[in-house]
């Protein structure tokens, strides 16, 4: 009976992993800006997660546990390859007109470039907070630093991005402004 329960639990966990695969890939891509590498990182993280599934204490911590494995894979990669500064290269050979699609691509490229210019520790924190939507406590657990460090990294990352992205007076290409009335 225990074997059956174990098999069912294992199957369920794999399903949970599969549901999160896309988000993991997106986050990995936000760190490395390389689709093949992001794929490899996610693949490795999934493999390690399945192999070490018995170490997962509670299902409620699955997200932070998985992302922690992913970030460890990423750090391992950086250590081995010695690449601490990545070049960011977005190739855009699509038609450069003023269609909505092109405008959208311009914005995405610009934001990604700005994020790519951040130091890696800031990049990781800001994407985990702003893209993956983790709380400060969860990020602290994933990145393995105190919550205060998460706050200061997030502050520095956003300051930097704000200067790069929202300085409208110096920007001729794209005019973006968030408006809210409430």
């Amino acid at each position: 009976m225990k074997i059956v329960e174990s098999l069912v639990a294992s199957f369920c966990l794999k399903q949970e992993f599969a549901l999160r695969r896309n988000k993991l890939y997106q986050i990995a891509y936000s760190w490395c800006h390389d689709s093949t590498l992001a794929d490899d990182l996610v693949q490795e993280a999934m493999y390690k997660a399945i192999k070490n599934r018995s170490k997962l204490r509670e299902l409620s911590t699955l997200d932070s546990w998985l992302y922690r494995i992913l970030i460890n894979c990423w750090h391992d990669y950086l250590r081995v390859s010695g690449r601490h500064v990545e070049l960011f290269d977005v190739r855009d050979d699509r038609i450069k007109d003023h269609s909505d699609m092109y405008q959208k691509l311009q914005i995405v490229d610009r934001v990604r470039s700005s994020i790519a210019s951040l130091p890696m520790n800031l990049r990781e924190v800001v994407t985990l907070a702003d893209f993956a939507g983790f709380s400060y406590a969860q990020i602290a657990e994933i990145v393995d630093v105190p919550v205060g460090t998460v706050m200061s990294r997030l502050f520095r990352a956003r300051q930097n991005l704000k200067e790069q992205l929202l300085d409208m007076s110096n920007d001729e290409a794209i005019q973006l402004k968030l408006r809210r009335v409430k």
Partner: protein
Amino acid sequence: MDNKQYTDEKLNLFIDNELDDVEANELHEAMLQDPQIRERVCQLKAVRELVGFAYQSPPRSNYDRRVRSNSGRSMLWKGIAASLVLCLGIIVGWSTHQYGPSVIAGSTTASNVFSYYAEHAPSKNIGRNFILHLSTSDIGAVKAALDEADNLITSYKRSNTPLKIDIIANQRGIDVLRVDVSPYIDRIQKMVAENDAVTLFACERSIAKAKAREGRDIVVMPETVTNKTARELIPERLNDGWVYIKV
């Protein structure tokens, strides 16, 4: 209210919902009072939205490609099933639609406003149209809305980009345009007089209801268009791609 009292670290905590209720409420009050604080919060939120937006569609992963190629047939059946559900949804929606959230869904939050911008970001000198929907006469909210309209006008003028703002009032919002009630008449009149871009609308139905409720004629500013309901005005603009800002 001291703008400098609120550091960017604190504003970060606020937008990330990491402040306790008391501090969050204090900051919310301060935002209502001080446009500079509001602007700083908006900028941080904009950065957050931009980061979130930037990676929603990364290059497709190889894993994804393999999965898709293996599941073509099941996708066909899923597509047929989804089409049936969609048809059912359309029929049910059509038979039950009302003015309200269903009509203007998806347009009311800052993130959606941003997404709209992001997806339709203007190249230089291409105009932008806004609906400013007033459904309340709350003084703080109305002031924020008028500040917002002023900011839009100023920034679009500065960049020499055409702009159109339709201020559409309904429910209690029509009080804002009533000459015998509104504290903002002078300000709105000045805004309309100085800017061809701004047009005022008061919902015909809301005026009729207010008249029945109060037993007297409802007198709105002479510049106000009153021959249509908000139910007609808002959806037709949304269909034309206007940006919707709800107050």
